[in-house]
């Protein structure tokens, strides 16, 4: 079986495990020290993306898969941007409308 050919050493998993702990701890520190605004958003999102990438790449073995699988999984997922953008515009419009109405 193709998947059986590449087995990374156990030490790699332990390192990644440690890395995930550290990243989670950092995102908890953001909460603990009560950071607000742009710093909070950018740090939380940064740690989130890093954790997700590490889990996908190493734990789910995507790093050792072929580009065809990367594309088949990644490209459809990118479509999720569409509802995010549409509903963000809609939400901004509604709160804008409310503000205008209530402050008139």
């Amino acid at each position, binding site marked *: *079986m*193709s*998947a*059986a*050919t*590449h*087995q*990374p050493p*156990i030490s790699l*998993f*332990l390192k*990644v*495990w440690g890395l*995930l*702990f550290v990243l*989670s701890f950092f*995102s*908890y520190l*953001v*909460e*603990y020290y*009560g950071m607000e605004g742009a710093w*909070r*958003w950018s740090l*939380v*999102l940064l*740690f*989130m993306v890093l*954790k*997700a990438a590490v*889990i*996908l790449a*190493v*734990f*789910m*073995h995507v*790093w*050792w*898969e*072929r*580009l*065809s*699988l990367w*594309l*088949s*999984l990644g490209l*459809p*997922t990118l479509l*999720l941007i569409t*509802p*995010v953008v549409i*509903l*963000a515009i*809609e*939400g*901004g419009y*509604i*709160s804008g409308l*409310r503000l205008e109405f209530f402050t008139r």
Partner: protein
Amino acid sequence: MTTKSNETEVTASETWQGVVADWSADKETFAMPWGKLMMWIFLLGDTFIFGIFLVAYMAARMNAVEPWPDTEAIFSMTLFGHEFPLLLIAIMTFILITSSGTMAMAVNYAYRGDRRKTVLFMSATALLGLSFVGMQAYEWYQLIYNYDIRPWGNPLGAEQFGAVFFMITGFHGLHVLAGVIYLSIVARKVSRGHYEKKGYAIVEITGLYWHFVDLVWVFIFAFFYLL
């Protein structure tokens, strides 16, 4: 291009020619056990379910008339006379990450042919998952009885908070519970030597599901609890 994936070790440097060859060759596109491909397709579908839940959460939160409750205050815990925000959630996060680590090791030992260690690590993963669900049940109890939050209402602010909370964490918890059952069944079969002839791809497939549950929690933790 007749390269099968067992000849290309470092596929990160794969080229577009490889993609064309995969899709145009007179054989299956993905050189992997069919169960693994099916799991990937299932997980892609699941990505959309969770993705749409999170998008709905964004929309509900942006459109809520009343202020969104402060998760920091709701999910805080007092320990040794000091108040820690989100302590239980942080512990749950660490437990799920640890369970992902033990699962990755189970997959590794399965392919090395060490049945005893595979079963050991799979059982550890299932137990950690079970403790995660237990803590989530406790968290639900807290919100329902101490804060009086319901799927249809919330005395602390925006009503939609209750609906979003129970929907997203409930659906994720259901995935964890299903994963625990799935892991237990596969671990039992591994211990009985059921896969000696078929090969141990099933452990990797189970692992994919389990890591995905962890992956989803990363996003829930960030979007729902931290932001």
